[in-house]
């Protein structure tokens, strides 16, 4: 086994040689590495080329190989990955002498040649001090903990069960369904909430799903693949071991505390209150008694400085309930006071149009001059300035419905803390925007439903399914696919800490963006391999040089710097 690496220089069908002649390159390298094994090849990236060089390396018994070719983004990665597939144990690294050198210095061939030599020597230096981190495997527990049995949690559990994965479904309340239990009808198709819920309840009632009602999650410890969740079932403590966690603990409605005289004027109620009343009326198929005019006020306690966000679902909910009122009694005059009706998309816009067609009146107001609710004991009227016509309006009303937003649940923060999720400024949990909104930075942790942002029931179940398949995918992989995470083509292992050199100062612990570095109580600092993504922050902040990324060690970087360092020249002599 020869220690010196075999160097393949791809001339890309001699196009490289136009700028950097083979001879110059060879002499340049040999001048610095007298016993370098250099092979010029016209191409590296065709399958047969890769087979060829893989064979050559085997027969010449080289431990490592350096490819001087095009950029990893062009074809370089194809070659590296191809080699890795044929011989996983081999140390291969790539330097980009085409895009990175010949093509950008075409105007100055001498400099280009000198740089190419530098790059090759840097590659060799890097290979010399490079360590091969061992293949990284982990056996995840094939069970998923789903926190919260609302629509999102139920859908997630049901999906996982059908994919043959065990689920522990922890629900705070005595029965599953979450907020959906209080909703009689769902926009946009006016589907009965019970019916909708039933489909997902039946999905989740599956031998694989272990539903734990009246259970709250107190703490989640452990690492991806083996989380230890501490639950309390009516005060009784129990532990669940799960490979992945899906956070679906939902959100809670804000109640209109004495806004618009709610509480002091009878007839001023919250949207949720109206919902329950309508459910009752629809069950009894009776018309609402003593209501001639109903006024909905949107964006109560929302989209203002105190709560600067739009809760997404209040507008469609209001439209749906306005329609329900109309359906119960055509003669009720219904007015919706709004700051813009938020019904994006096809179906919701259709709902908006239906509502208008049914005779529901829409009046826009500006937050600067909110509506005023009048009455004495009972609500009598609402007055406001129409934002579109600037006219004053007085609307007779014996029912005023306040649309309030959803807000994060208190337990979200603590669970997010345990699971390494970030919270946004409002307190909802964040995934990895924009491409993986339901995936936490910590592997094996997913979120869905209103815990991330207020969503309709339909969207909640969609997110539940989405989170479920992500979790299933995570549990399916035996070893983390490091290539996708780390430097192109070069498989890289997690950071490692030399305990004898570690001063336990905890800089890496407080610095690590993934919570992978941790210090047990006056024990050594360790790195959790599954969490670590090799960003190297720990290496940069360690004062004693105890941390290292095996494939890009500080020593090798230093060696590369040496190769770049200017050789003594006439210039420097003059300087002396």
């Amino acid at each position, binding site marked *: 086994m020869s220690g010196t690496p075999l160097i393949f220089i791809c001339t890309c069908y001699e196009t490289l040689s136009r700028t950097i002649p083979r001879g110059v390159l060879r002499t340049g390298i040999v001048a610095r590495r007298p016993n370098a094994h250099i092979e010029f090849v016209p191409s590296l990236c065709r399958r047969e080329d890769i087979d060829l060089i893989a064979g050559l390396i085997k027969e010449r018994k080289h431990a490592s190989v350096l490819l001087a070719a095009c*950029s*990893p*983004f*062009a074809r370089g990665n194809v070659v590296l990955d191809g080699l890795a597939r044929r011989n996983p144990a081999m140390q291969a690294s790539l330097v*980009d002498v*085409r*895009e*990175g*050198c010949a*093509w*950008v*210095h*075409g*105007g*100055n061939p001498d*400099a*280009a040649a*000198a*740089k190419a030599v*530098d*790059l090759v020597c*840097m590659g060799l230096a890097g290979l010399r001090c490079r360590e091969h981190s061992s293949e990284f495997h982990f056996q995840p527990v094939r069970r998923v903990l789903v926190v919260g049995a609302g629509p999102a949690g139920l859908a997630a559990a049901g999906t996982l069960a059908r994919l043959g994965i065990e689920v522990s479904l922890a629900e705070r309340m005595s029965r599953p369904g979450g907020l959906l239990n209080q909703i009689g009808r769902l926009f946009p198709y006016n589907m009965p909430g019970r019916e909708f819920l039933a489909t997902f309840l039946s999905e989740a009632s599956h031998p694989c799903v272990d539903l734990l009602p009246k259970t709250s999650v107190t703490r989640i410890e452990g690492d991806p693949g083996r989380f230890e969740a501490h639950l309390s079932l009516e005060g009784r403590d129990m532990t669940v071991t799960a490979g992945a966690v899906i956070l679906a603990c939902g959100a809670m409605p804000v109640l209109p505390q004495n806004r618009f005289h709610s509480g002091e004027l009878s007839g001023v109620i919250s949207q949720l209150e109206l919902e329950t009343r309508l459910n009752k009326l629809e069950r009894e198929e009776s018309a609402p008694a003593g209501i001639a005019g109903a006024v909905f006020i949107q964006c109560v306690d929302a989209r203002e400085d105190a709560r600067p966000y739009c809760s997404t679902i209040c507008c469609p909910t209001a439209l749906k309930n306005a329609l329900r009122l109309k359906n119960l009694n055509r003669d009720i005059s219904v007015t919706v006071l709004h700051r813009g009706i938020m019904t994006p998309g096809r179906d919701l816009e259709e709902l908006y149009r239906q509502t208008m067609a049914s005779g529901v009146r829409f009046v826009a107001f500006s937050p600067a001059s909110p509506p005023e609710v009048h009455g004495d004991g009972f609500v009598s009227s609402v007055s406001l300035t129409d934002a579109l016509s600037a006219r004053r309006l007085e609307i007779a009303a014996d029912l005023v419905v306040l649309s309030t937003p959803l807000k994060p649940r208190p337990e979200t923060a603590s669970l997010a803390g345990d699971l390494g999720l*970030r919270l946004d400024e409002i307190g909802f949990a964040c995934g990895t925007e924009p491409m993986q909104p339901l995936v936490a*930075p910590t592997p094996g942790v997913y979120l869905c439903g209103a815990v991330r942002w207020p969503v309709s029931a339909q969207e909640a179940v969609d997110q539940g399914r989405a989170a479920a398949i992500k979790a299933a995918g995570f549990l399916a992989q035996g070893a983390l696919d490091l290539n996708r995470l*780390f*430097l*192109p083509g070069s498989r*890289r292992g997690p950071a490692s800490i030399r305990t004898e050199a570690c001063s336990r100062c905890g800089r890496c612990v407080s*610095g690590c*963006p*993934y919570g992978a570095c941790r210090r047990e109580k006056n024990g050594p600092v360790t790195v959790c391999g599954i969490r670590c*993504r*090799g*960003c*190297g*922050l720990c*290496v*940069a*902040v360690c004062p004693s040089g105890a941390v290292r*990324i095996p494939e*890009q060690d*500080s020593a090798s*970087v*230093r060696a*590369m*710097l*040496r190769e*770049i*360092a*200017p050789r003594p*020249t*006439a*210039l*420097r002599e*003059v*300087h*002396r």
Partner: protein
Amino acid sequence: MTEPASDILSPNGCPEIRAVVFACRWCALVGADRAGKERMDLPASFRVIPVECAAGVEPDLVLRAFAEGLDGVAVMGCHLGGCRHNEANRSARLRLMLLQDLLEIIGLDRRRLLLSWGTAHEGYQFAGLMREFTAILTGLPPVDSRLLGPC
């Protein structure tokens, strides 16, 4: 003006400038790659070392680079808020800005350490930075152990 402008010129009329670029492979490395694909003509003064994240660049090794006699070091990462490693580049920025201050304190020009956050992901952006950087370094004398060694 902390350093006298270099009046030493190599035979071909321009000082021999050497710089190393630590390029985040998610952002600046893409820019470098594109500069190549678009076959832009750049000064041959820099050598790129790809890194997984700018947060992984050791300030101590940056100092090492200067000690090796390099005229400049560039660290290029994703734009703040776009880091692929959970905002790791924010603290990297702080560390490296401090390193600039340190250079300034002992009287070296802070511009020797170029920091770029999300300003090099297009070919022309990378090219522009490299040209400007080289131009700046050309105006400064070589940092050499000699420069700081016994007089």
